[in-house]
């Protein structure tokens, strides 16, 4: 059976992805900062899907620990799914460096640090799949969340370059661009129901995109076109908008 590593396994999207992959007969390696908090999910996956599941401590912002973390995995995963992220508070971050640093170091630096290590392993083996959950917020900076958005923009560009490099080694890289998703991270926000996906929908889309070796996945699908429009607004007009 193939094995999937889920980085940041505690989030709603991660739980949905873990369950979907388990349902498709993947064994799972779950990783999150608080390893004890993963125990219920690990049990749940084993009992519901009759698969193997293990939990590991992983701190995205403790870059120095990443090599040892990957070396310490009991099996090397066939697919690595990088789900962790930190939305933070834009207004706070504007005047508070530690909030800004946490946003950048979780969404960008931390992701790059661990995926560099995974990429080396996959490149050497000439096989593997890397999935990065980025965000449509990274496609254009808006005043309401450009610090989060720019960290995701960096991540998206990183994944694009990684894909370009690893394609020649037989490794597949999938960039996931979710639009609005109903999760704990966003439950205080008002989001338009028609544009908002459930985590289960995202999980299903991710699995299918992995199967079909897609490069960039938008979920829900029409976000591709929404973002096309948003990207094409001339900057002179865009800067005047309250977005």
């Amino acid at each position, binding site marked *: 059976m193939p094995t999937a590593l889920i980085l940041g396994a505690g989030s709603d999207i991660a739980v949905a992805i873990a369950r979907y992959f388990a349902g498709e007969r993947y064994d799972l390696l779950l990783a999150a900062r608080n390893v004890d*908090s993963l125990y*219920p999910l690990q049990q749940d996956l084993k*009992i519901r899907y009759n698969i193997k599941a293990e939990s590991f401590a992983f701190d995205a912002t403790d870059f120095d620990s990443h090599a040892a973390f990957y070396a310490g995995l009991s099996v090397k995963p066939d697919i690595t799914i990088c789900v962790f992220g930190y939305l933070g508070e834009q207004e706070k971050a504007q005047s508070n460096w530690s909030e800004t640093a946490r946003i950048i170091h979780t969404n960008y630096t931390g992701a790059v640090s661990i995926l560099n290590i995974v990429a080396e392993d996959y490149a050497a083996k000439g096989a593997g799949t890397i999935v990065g959950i980025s965000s449509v917020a990274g496609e254009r900076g808006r005043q309401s969340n450009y610090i989060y958005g720019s960290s995701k923009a960096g991540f998206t560009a990183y994944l694009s370059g990684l894909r370009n490099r690893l394609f020649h080694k037989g490794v597949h890289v999938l960039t996931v661009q979710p639009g609005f998703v109903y999760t*704990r991270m966003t439950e205080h*926000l008002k*989001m338009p129901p028609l544009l908002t996906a459930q985590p289960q929908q995202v999980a299903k889309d991710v699995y299918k995109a992995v199967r079909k070796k897609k490069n960039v996945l938008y979920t829900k699908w029409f976000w591709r076109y929404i973002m096309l429009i948003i990207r094409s607004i001339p900057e002179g007009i865009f800067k005047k908008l309250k977005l």
Partner: protein
Amino acid sequence: MEKRLANWGNYPVISCDETTFTQVDQVEEIISSHSSIIARGNGRCYGDASLATNSVSTLKFDKVLQFDTETGVFECQSGITLDQILGIVVPKGWFLPVTPGTKFITVGGAVASDVHGKNHHAEGSFSNHIIDMDVITGKKETLTCSKHVLPDLFWATCGGMGLTGIITRVKFSLKKIETAYIKQKQIKARNLDELIRLFEEYNGYTYSMAWIDCLQKGDSFGRGILIVGEHATKEELNAQQQAAPLNLPDKRPLSVPFNFPSFALNTLTVKAFNWLYYAKNTKKEINNVIPYEPFFYPLDAILHWNRGYGKAGFVQYQFVLPLDKKEGLVKILKRISDAGLGSFLAVLKVFGHQDNLISFPTQGYTLALDFPVRKGLFAFLDELDQVVLEYGGRLYLSKDARMKKEVFWQSYPNAQRFAEIVKAYNGDNIFHSVQSERLGIN
């Protein structure tokens, strides 16, 4: 996020700020940051028991923690639905010890309502099968309780409508089955007397209930169909079923896509429906082996069936009367049939002995029926309440959306004791709902 929320009856609808959690420490944070809140599962209670200005949804707290396929001990977080549990345990030869008429409720809800099923007379309500559980109380501490440890908290939580705190973990015993099928028997009864006689005659069956047509008068007053059943053994299945006795063939549910207009339901359509339901059984007695789903959950096959009652919603009225008060049952059925306020099929069942602190079931006759919300309905139900009181009965809080405070305090003999225990564990009154305020519990 702030949203308009209603439970299954679509009445009442209130504006509610709902939060979710996936870890216990998040619950503690949520309790700390709200002055009042109530836990909410899948919203399948009918009335206002899990509605409040602030609610905390348990649906993301849905992990299975332990399932011993040898002993049938099952342990889970409170937000998992019975539907999911069945999907896990049935293929391994186990079944829920007690299940209500829908599988789309959470385990937390099953405890808070102390749900009963068709086997109440034989196996009691859900609380009967709980080994232990965790409740986060008003002091933000997780307390483990059982029939032996903190029994006051345990009994005030079973059937306590979430007022002692947030149920987070439940460990209970499943029931061994050989197949996913039920050997059922349906017997038509020409009137209420015959129906009640049949209940007594078939008392030995594990599962029993009856559909009853409450619009009939005269000789046919209270006519219905008694349905009894047992889990089928392997030998009782046909060859095709025997090939995979614990797996049911996949069946997609139908769905009611929108609210029906209010005129869709009137005495005529309800009469026609009830007539068809009774007439479809052309024989006096039918014996067959069927999958467990249509036996336990006939209405779950139609998603959103509540929309059939229109936008104004409906209330389900369920009461229990002591076994020696059959005349009370007759009186209430007569009033319903005279008023012509009609309901689709009503459900009648005989409860076995039970005497918990605040749980609804107690030995006697229980009748459940739906009434679409319309002018004059609540005044009519207030009159029925008086009959229920007169005969020493009470109403099911999980169905209730409109009972007057006095009726609750007069009909539940342990109401005072219950309120005291709630106060002890929920001191600052953090956990309260639209219902608990209406009933003056806290």
